[in-house]
C-alpha cells in the first residue's frame, strides 16, 4: 500500500501477464469488433467480455431471436480460438456434450471422440431444453474445467468459457436449471429488445449479407490467457472486500436464500475484470456496483418469483454503505 510498490505489479513468475492498460485496450478492441455485428447491447457485450476475462461463464436468458447466439458467436469469432456450439434438445445425452469413447476398427483401440465441450468458447444453446442429466454434464465441466468419461479425466482447454442461452417462453417444454447449478454461472444477462433505431440499423446491416461472416479475429488465445492472468492479479483491498461482504450479507438478511460465498467470489472476479477494462489495477466500489446487478440476482431466492432477486440487489446497492 505504499508508493514503494510500483502501481502495476503484475509480473508473475510462471505466466506472463499483460500490462493492465493493454488489457483495457484489448477489451475495447473486442467490444468494437463485436459491435460491428451486434447493434446496441454495449453493456451486455462488455459483461460477456469481462466474464471471459474473469474466468466466468455467462447465461443469456431471454426470448428467442434477440441475438443471444449472435452475441456469443461474435465474441468467439473476435478471439482466434476454438468455438463450439451445442444445441440442447430434449433428447440430447451427456455423451453428446462431453464426448464418447469409440472403438477404432483400424487401431483396434477405443479412441476418445471429443465432444463439443472441448472448445475455448462453448455456446450451449437453449440449455433448458435438455434434461437435467445432460445439463449437469455441461455444468460439471464448467465448474471443474475437466470432463471424466469412462473413468478417464481429461482437461478442458484453457481458456474455457461457456456462454449458455435459455429462453423463458414455453415453460412446459423446458427443464428449469436447478438453483444450485445456476450459481455456477458468473453472470446472467438479459439482452432485451433493441431500441427502434437500433433495430432499424440492425436490419440495414443484416438484410442480405450478414456481417458475422466477414468478422475477423482481433486477438489470439495467448493474449486472452495473459489478460486473464492480469485480471486475476487486480488488487482487491479490504474496503472493497468488506463492501462485497456487506452486500452479500444484506441479500442474506432480506431473502430466503441470499448470495453464497461463491457468489461473492464471482462478484469480486467480475469487478476485477471491470477494473481492468478501465485500465485500473485495483477494484473500486463502483466496479462492484456495476457487476452486482448481473452477478447476484440469479443466486437469490425470495419466495417464488425468480426476478425478485433483482429487486433485492438494487435495494442492497441503495442501502448498503460503501465505506
Amino acid at each position, binding site marked *: *500500500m*505504499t*508508493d514503494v*510498490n*510500483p*502501481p502495476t*505489479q503484475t509480473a508473475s513468475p510462471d505466466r506472463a501477464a499483460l500490462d493492465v492498460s493493454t488489457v483495457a485496450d484489448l477489451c475495447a478492441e473486442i467490444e468494437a469488433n463485436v459491435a460491428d455485428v451486434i447493434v446496441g447491447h454495449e453493456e451486455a457485450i462488455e459483461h460477456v467480455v469481462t466474464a471471459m476475462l474473469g474466468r466466468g461463464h455467462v447465461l443469456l436468458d431471454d426470448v428467442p431471436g434477440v441475438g443471444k447466439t449472435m452475441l456469443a458467436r461474435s465474441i468467439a469469432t473476435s478471439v482466434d480460438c476454438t468455438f463450439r456450439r451445442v444445441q440442447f434438445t430434449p433428447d440430447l445425452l451427456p455423451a453428446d456434450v462431453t464426448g464418447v469413447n469409440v472403438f477404432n476398427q483400424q487401431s483396434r483401440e477405443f479412441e476418445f471422440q471429443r465432444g463439443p465441450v472441448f472448445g475455448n468458447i462453448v455456446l450451449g444453446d437453449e440449455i433448458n431444453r435438455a434434461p437435467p442429466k445432460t445439463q449437469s454434464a455441461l455444468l460439471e465441466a464448467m465448474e471443474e474445467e475437466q470432463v471424466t468419461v469412462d473413468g478417464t479425466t481429461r482437461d478442458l482447454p484453457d481458456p474455457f468459457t461457456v456462454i449458455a442461452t435459455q429462453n423463458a417462453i414455453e415453460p412446459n417444454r423446458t427443464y428449469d436449471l436447478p438453483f444450485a447449478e445456476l450459481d455456477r454461472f458468473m453472470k446472467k444477462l438479459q439482452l432485451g429488445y433493441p431500441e427502434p433505431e437500433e433495430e432499424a440499423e440492425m436490419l440495414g446491416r443484416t438484410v442480405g449479407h450478414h456481417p458475422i461472416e466477414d468478422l475477423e479475429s482481433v486477438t489470439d488465445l495467448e493474449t486472452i490467457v495473459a489478460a486473464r492472468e492480469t485480471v486475476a492479479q487486480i*488488487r482487491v*483491498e479490504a*474496503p*472493497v472486500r468488506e463492501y462485497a461482504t456487506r452486500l452479500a450479507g444484506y441479500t442474506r438478511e432480506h431473502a430466503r436464500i441470499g448470495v453464497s460465498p461463491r457468489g461473492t467470489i464471482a462478484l469480486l472476479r467480475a469487478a476485477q475484470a471491470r477494473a481492468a477494462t478501465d485500465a*485500473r*489495477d*485495483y*477494484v*473500486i*466500489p*463502483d466496479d462492484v*456496483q456495476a457487476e452486482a446487478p448481473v452477478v447476484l440476482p440469479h443466486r437469490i431466492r425470495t419466495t417464488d418469483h425468480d426476478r425478485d432477486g433483482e429487486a433485492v440487489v438494487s435495494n442492497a*446497492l*441503495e*442501502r*448498503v*454503505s*460503501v465505506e
Partner: protein
Amino acid sequence: MSAKSESHAGDRTADLGLDGSIGPDTFRLLALGCVLVMTASYVSVLREVTRVVGGTQSLFALVGAVIVVATVLAWTIRPRTAVVAALVAGAVGFGYYLEITGVGVDVVFSASDAILSDTVTLVAGLPLLRMVEAGVWTLAFVPAPVFLSWYLAVRSRYALAVIPGGFALIFLVLTGDAGTTVTLLGTLAAVGAVGFGELERRGGSVAQADLLAVSFALIIVLSLSVTVVPDGSGSSDHLSGGDPNTLEGAIDYSSERSGIGGSVDLSPEVRFTVESERGAYWRTGVYDRFAGDEWVRTGDASAYDGPLEEPPGEHERVRQVVTAETNLGVLPAAGQPLAIEGDLAQHTEVSAHGQFHPTTSVIEGDSYAVESAIIDPDAAELRAAGTNYPQPILEGDYLQTPESTSSEFEERTAEITADADTPYDKAVAIEAHLRSTKDYSLEVDRPNGNVAEEFLLEMDEGYCVYFATAMTQMLRAEDVPARYVTGYTAGQEVDDDEYVVRGTDAHAWVEVYFPDHGWVAFEPTPPGPRDEAHADSVEQARSDGADNVDTDSSQDVPVSDDDDESADNPDENGADDDGSDLNETDPGSDDGPDGNETDPGSDDDQSGSDDGSDGAGASVEASDRDDGLVSSLISALSVSRETAAIGLVALVGVVAGVHRTGATDRVRRTVGCYWQRRTDDPDRDTERAYRRLERVLAREYRPRERSESARSYLEALSADPDRDVGPQVATVVDRYERALYGGGVSRNEADETIELVDEFTRARLPIVGRR
C-alpha cells in the same frame, strides 16, 4: 471498604488509559467523595452551632464513629435493618435531648402537638442557635443522616444515600442555619454523588461527565442568581431604617439576632418620642448567646398576657408613653418593662428575657404606655449581693462564651479584674478599662472571628456594639452572668419629661445580674465621643435640610447643648456621688467628658456629651467620606469578582453543554474543512483531503449518500452543468481511490492532493472565499 479501595488502586491507575477513559473504580471514589462532602456540608452547619455553645469535639467524634460503624455495618446488615437502626438511633438521640432540656421524654406522648408545632417553628426558620440546648440537639440530630447516607453509599446505593443527607441539609436550610455556600456545596455534592454513581453503574466515560458539569453549572448559577435559601441575614425588614449599614440596622437587624458589623452610618431621623418623668436607656432587645460574630436570643417568645413579674430587689416604677415617629419593629421601653397598655398590647409578645417585642410593625403615630421597673441599687448593695445566683440564671446562656474563646482573652480579663473581689467590682473594672483604653469610632473594619476577643486584644477603637460585646464576654469569662442589650439612649430632652429619640441614639450596652436585685445596666462605651459623633450627625442632617430629623418640638432645641449638658451632668454626678449610683465608680466622673455616665436605670438624662464636638465631628465626617470612596471601590471590586466567578462557572457549563450537543465536533469539522495537518502516511493524508472536499461539496450541493461511491457521487454532481465541480475534484477522487483501494499514493501525490483540496475549499470559504 478501605481495603477494597486499596485493592483496586492498581486497577484504577490502569483504567486511566491513553484514551483518557476513567474506570468505574474512579467513579466510585468520586461518588463516595461527594457523599462525604455532602455530609461535611451539614456537619459544618452543626459545627457552627457547637463552635458557639461548645461540643465540637463530641460532634466530630460522634460523626467519625458513626461513619466507621456505618462502614462496618454496610458489609454485615441488610438495608432494612440499617434504616431501623438509624431511626432508633435518631429517636434515642432526640429522647436524650428532651431529657437534657428538662422536658422529659414523656412530653412526646403528652404534648405531641407542641412538639409538632416546635418542629414547624424550627422548619419555618428558627435558627438552631436560638434553641436552649443547641449543642445537645446537634448531637441528637447528626447520627441518623450520617449513618444512613454513608451506609448506603458504601453499598453503592448513591441515589438513596443522598436522601438522608439531603433531608438533613434541607432541614438546616429551612432553619436558616445553612448559608448559601454550604447549601450549594451540599447540593453539588449530592448531584455529584448521584451522577458519579450512575457513571460507575453504567460504566460511563469522562465524555458523559459533561452532563454532570452542565448540571453543576446550572445549579450554581441559578442558586447564586435566585435567592431561595432563607438566609437569616437576608431578611431585614425589621426596622424602617433597617439598612444593615446603619448602627441600628446592625444591632437590630432582625428580631432574634443582633449583628456586629464593620463601619456604620448613623441615621439622624427621629424614631420615636417618649413622655416620661425620667430619661432612661430605651431598651429594645436582649440577647444571651454569643456566636462570635453576632448575638442571638435563645428561647421562645410568648404572647403578652398581663404584667410581668417584678424584679426581686428594690425598684422604682416609671411610666412612659412612647409615640412612634416612624414605622418601628421594636417596642422601646426603659429598664425592665413590666406592663404595656394600649392597642399594641395585644400585638405584643414577651421574650424569654422579659423584653417586649411587637408581633406586627408599629405604625408611625402609634403610641403605647409602658410601665417599667427601674432598679436603682447603690454600689454597696451591689457589692454585697454576692454570687448566689438562682438556678435559671445559671442554666441560661448568660455565662456562655464561644468554644473558641482563647485563653489569652481570659488571662487578660483576669488581669484587668485582678483587684476586684466582687462581681460588681469586676464589672466596674472592666467598664473602666474599656472606657479608658479604647477610642470611640464608627469607622472600624469588622474583625474576623470572635469580636469580643479581637476588640479586647487587638483593636484600638470601636463603637458601642464592640464595647458592650467585649464587656459581656469578659464578665462571663469571670463567671459573672451578663447579657447584651440593645436599644436607644435617652435622646434629646425637648421639654420637661419629653424625649426625642433619633436613629443616632441607637446603642448597645450591658446588663449584669445581681442576686436579689436583678439585671443592672452598665455602660462600657465612653459617652463623650459617642455623643459628639452622634450629635454632629444630627446637626449635619439639619443643615442639609434632611427630612424627619426633628419633631415640631425638637427643632429649636440644640441636640448637644453644652449648657444643657453641663447643667445636667453635675446634677447627675451629684446624685452619683451620693453613692446611689454606679457612676461613683468612674474615675474622674465630675469633670472629664468621658468620665461620667450612664446608668440607664437611674439617670434622668443620658445624652451626656460635652465638649469640642465640632472638631471631632468634622474629622469623623472627613474620614467618613474617604471611607465611603474606598468602601465603594472595594464593593465594586468584590461584586466584579463574584460576577467573574459566576461567569466562569456559567462558562464551564456552556462549554460542557456545547460539548454535549456536539457543537465542538461540528466546529472542529468545519475548521477541518479548510485546514489539514499532515501525517507521515500519504494515503491517510489523501483520504483526509478527500473527506474535506466531500464536506465542502456536501455543504455546497448535497451530502454523499452512504451507498454512493466517491466516483458516482462526483459523477452525479458533475451531471449538473450549473455545478462548478472542476477537474481537480476528479483528480482528488482518483487519488483517494488509489490511496484507499489501490496501491497507495506517493508523498508528492498526497501533497498535491492536499493542495488541490486546499485551493478548492478555500475558494469556498464563507466570507473571504472568492465565491
